[in-house]
């Protein structure tokens, strides 16, 4: 396989833009109509993902070690979408047909062989990861809604029970598919540490125009079923550390941090946890009563509510990083941050500037994985 020839071929093909993935999926669905059902109605996001993934694969095709983790994740991810081994051949056929179509006169048997080799490597790694994953757990978990509690006009806490039991680490997330939005999966953090009864909490914030969040925040009733993907995520407690902990949660970013706080409460000697819970307006501090109750029962926990844009609130006013850095010196703490991407990035930068080592700042990183 000639990597530079492959990259050259891809760069020419990709100039056709959206036409390329559009052709690919139509070709696939005509040759294998049964596959259509594995995809959502709108394919726009899907096409972007395909080109993104192809781009990454082509860029790293000669560095299999770097690519390995990406492909394994991709392979595991595709289990919950219902992908099986037979689909990989179908996809390979349509991919080759698409590439040949757009390459036009520049297509040669050698380039065809490059692509065939590359796809064999990619699909092999994905299928191997998917197969290895089968031994570890199901492709997805069937979940039933036990309760949905509206905490604010745009925030709902869903409690579900899964079948079978879903094991996870506090702070991890799962992809959720609602029956109201088939084939659309979105990641949500589990908002509790593992419980005896196996139930899971999710904090769902309504995103304006968000296809899945509307269905989850307003469309679910007790007894409705959801599908959950396997637990993923690296925002988990560093159990080897004995340092005190700083947590900064923006809105429903509270969910993973609440789960970790519950895990801390089960430790023999809990470190001190300083939890900043931040929202734009006071009514966005949807879970404050439960946090304050926890703080009252646990001397090692301090909860600080922060409101960034409310004319009525005087306490903790201002930009979140200012409030946090004004409150104390966090250079000796482990930090756990979750919330809007922008908030997490700013907070992280401020903590590093304040002397907290970067490796002690824990944030979630989903990579491309959002399906």
């Amino acid at each position, binding site marked *: 396989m000639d990597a530079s020839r492959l990259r050259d071929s891809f760069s020419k093909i990709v100039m*056709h833009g959206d*036409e390329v993935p*559009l*052709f690919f*999926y*139509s*070709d696939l*669905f*005509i040759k294998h109509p049964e596959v259509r059902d594995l995809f959502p*109605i*709108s*394919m*726009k996001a899907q096409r972007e993902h395909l080109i993104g993934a192809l781009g990454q694969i082509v860029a790293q095709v000669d560095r299999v070690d770097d690519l390995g983790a990406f492909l394994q994740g991709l392979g595991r991810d595709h289990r919950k979408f219902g992908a099986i081994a037979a689909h990989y051949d179908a996809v390979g056929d349509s991919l080759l047909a698409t590439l040949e*179509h757009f390459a*036009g006169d520049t297509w040669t048997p050698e380039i065809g062989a490059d692509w065939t080799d590359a796809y064999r490597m990619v699909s092999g790694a994905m299928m191997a990861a998917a197969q290895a994953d089968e031994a570890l757990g199901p492709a997805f978990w069937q979940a039933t809604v036990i309760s949905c509690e509206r905490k604010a*006009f*745009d925030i709902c806490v869903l409690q579900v029970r899964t079948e079978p039991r879903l094991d996870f680490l506090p702070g991890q997330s799962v992809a959720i598919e609602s029956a109201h939005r088939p084939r659309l999966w979105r990641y949500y953090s589990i908002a509790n540490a593992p419980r005896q009864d196996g139930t899971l909490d999710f904090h769902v914030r*309504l995103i*304006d*125009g968000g*296809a899945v969040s*509307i269905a989850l925040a307003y469309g679910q009733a007790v007894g409705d079923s959801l599908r959950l993907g396997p637990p993923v995520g690296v925002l988990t407690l560093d159990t080897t550390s004995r340092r005190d902990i700083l947590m900064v949660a923006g809105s429903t970013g509270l969910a993973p941090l609440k789960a970790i706080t519950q895990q801390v409460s089960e430790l023999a000697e809990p470190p001190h946890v300083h939890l900043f819970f931040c929202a734009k307006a006071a009514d966005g501090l949807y879970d404050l009563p439960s946090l304050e109750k926890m703080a009252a029962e646990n001397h090692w926990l301090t909860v600080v509510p922060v409101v960034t844009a409310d004319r*009525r609130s005087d306490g903790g006013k201002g930009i979140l990083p200012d409030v946090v850095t004004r409150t104390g010196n966090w250079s000796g703490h482990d930090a756990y941050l979750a919330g809007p991407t922008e908030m997490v990035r700013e907070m992280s930068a401020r903590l590093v500037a304040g002397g907290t080592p970067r490796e002690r700042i824990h944030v979630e990183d989903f990579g491309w994985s959002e399906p």
Partner: protein
Amino acid sequence: MTLAWQQDQKRVTPDDVQAVTFPVTRLGRRGYDEEHVREFLREVERELVTLANEKISLWNEVERLRKRIISGMKQGDGVLFGREDAHVHAVRILSNAQLTADRYVADAQAYSHKLTAEARTRRDEILLAAQQHADMVLEEAQSRARQAALATLDAPAGQSLETDRSALKAELAYLRTFGEVYRTHLRAYTEGMLRSIAEWERNEAGAIAQATADARNQIDPGRH
């Protein structure tokens, strides 16, 4: 005989059917009735002619459509040049259908975004107005309470205060009356005592004078 249509076998034409002959059985009149066989073969011949005609007209139709598709594509955006065939055409049709579906979903999503965003703005406005109203009501209640407290200090106006006050007034009036009566009594008593003392003094003085005179008379009786 068979009427097979496989490519590698000899094709049966209406002429074949027309020309076919069957050997007559040796035992005279046993076997097929010749007239019935002839009648059937005439039917087969008619059927084959019809099929052949249909085939030709279908083939012409396919050619006509193929030409139309290719010329239609050449007038299009030209991305699919050179490799036009039925499959590519199907891909194109499906792609267009997919784009239409994408557009519908995107429109619905944009509409829902607009609705929720507007609802959020409206809610914030309503909340703000309600908060301002609540602030006003609170402020007014506070100022009224302040006024009431001040008024109480000057002249109590409350119902229970009034009751207390009249009870106190009655008690005060009683005490004042009692004091007056008592003072009058005391004054009368005191005056009475003073009068008695003066009388006693007067009597005492008279008695002493009498006793002194009596004593003088008894000591010197002849002086009368």
